[in-house]
């Protein structure tokens, strides 16, 4: 999202909640544009006569501290409900929103509402936390769905604030959290189970009452005996490509990978490479592509014999990783694995942004 949209977001928030007076604004300290975001939001808040509290955090290791800070700032205001997001398909934002909701629910006992696309990585954490005070509403994938997302969240927030009893996820529209509650049914469990069994035997459809979470577990591959003797390849999702983006990667939702040769190179010269990625600010990556494709370090280790001479595969694999759907990334992983096998590679370094 561009910094100038920070004001637009406040405007939309005000449309949905006309009486909103104080807003906390979460920004990334690692984003070179972080300060611009805060300044834009502050200018807009002034126009609307709102108070704004900027909270600047760096990386995941600072989430804990930032969550504490949010708790400290929120508690004196004694809110009825806390809202974070909507984060749409922004994974880094979604994760932060879920973490903050959980901390507030745990420390202050307040109900919290957030919103994001069901494939946002924040959703996995939400499911894992099983916190009965945190509700995550599904949204569309981009801020184009802001109006609809905020309306749905506002309705939900008002119900929570009014102390309404919230029913199960499939009836209320929030994403399931893996919490089970006892309910008195019309028919006994034995009867329902036999109905389901008959349906299954007769190949009719039925809905289970005990849905299992399917976690696709993969056993780690065996280690390399000696990295210095192994053939290594580099895969990167940083978006670093030759200048001009010859394969026309998009800044998000890419579906294909490419290989780019660095066979003759000792390092990646700034200006000959660029980062194509919509999920982070690429200014620093453009100045030094080694942040995403650490060729200088690999060559140094090669010179010291820590990587065998000629053992580094002479090209790197690239797919800019922003907002990739899990299904596409699985296929891309399988395709890259097939290529690595063909090329006789033993082990992989994967740099992910």
């Amino acid at each position, binding site marked *: 999202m561009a910094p100038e949209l920070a004001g637009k977001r406040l405007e939309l928030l005000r449309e949905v909640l006309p009486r909103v007076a104080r807003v906390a604004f979460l920004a990334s300290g*690692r984003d070179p544009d972080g300060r611009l975001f805060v300044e834009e939001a502050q200018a807009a808040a002034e126009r609307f006569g709102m108070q704004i509290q900027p909270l600047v955090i760096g*990386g*995941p290791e600072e*989430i804990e501290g930032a969550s504490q800070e949010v708790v400290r700032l929120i508690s004196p205001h004694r809110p009825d409900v806390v809202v974070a997001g909507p984060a749409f398909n922004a*994974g*880094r934002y979604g*994760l932060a929103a879920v973490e903050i909701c959980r901390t507030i629910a745990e420390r202050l006992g307040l109900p919290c509402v957030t919103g994001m696309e069901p494939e946002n*990585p924040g959703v*996995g954490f939400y499911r*894992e936390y099983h916190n009965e005070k945190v509700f995550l509403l599904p949204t569309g994938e981009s801020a184009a769905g802001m109006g609809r997302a905020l309306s749905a969240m506002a309705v939900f927030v008002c119900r929570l604030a009014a102390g309404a009893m919230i029913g199960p996820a499939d009836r209320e529209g929030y994403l399931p959290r893996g919490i089970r509650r006892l309910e008195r049914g019309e028919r006994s469990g034995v009867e329902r189970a036999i109905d389901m069994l008959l349906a299954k035997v007769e190949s009719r459809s039925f809905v289970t009452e005990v849905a299992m979470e399917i*976690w*696709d*577990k*993969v*056993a*780690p*591959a065996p*280690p*390399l*005996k000696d*990295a210095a003797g192994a053939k*290594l390849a580099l*895969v990167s999702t*940083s978006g670093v490509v030759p200048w001009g983006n010859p394969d026309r990667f998009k800044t998000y939702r890419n579906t294909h990978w490419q290989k780019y040769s660095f066979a003759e190179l000792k390092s990646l010269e700034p200006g000959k490479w660029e980062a194509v990625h919509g*999920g*982070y*600010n690429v*200014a*620093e*990556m453009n*100045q*030094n592509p*080694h*942040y*995403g494709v*650490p060729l200088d*370090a*690999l060559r*140094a*280790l090669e010179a010291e014999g*820590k990587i065998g001479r000629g053992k580094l595969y002479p090209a790197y694999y690239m*797919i800019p990783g922003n907002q990739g759907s*899990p299904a596409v*990334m*699985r296929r*891309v*992983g*399988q395709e*890259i*694995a*097939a290529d*690595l096998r063909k090329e006789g*590679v033993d*082990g*992989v*370094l*994967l*740099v*992910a*942004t």
Partner: protein
Amino acid sequence: MISKELDRAGFPVALISAMYPVAEQIGASRIVKAVAIPHPCGDPSLPAEMDRALRREIVTSALKALETEVETTTLFAPKMAVSS
């Protein structure tokens, strides 16, 4: 997701990422803690020499991770200087 498929195919992978909580959650096997999302391998706020040394340290940790037998999701932390 990519790293899991590579593991599944039998290639040990060192996943260098600043979003290590997500990597842990999806079940990547060898995760190397990186500096930050916009610059995983290094830190532009450091002098160039230290930035290069930090990158070398991260890649070295990744090589060590590849040589390490792991049973499940394991986080490897390179020695990093504190950055601003």
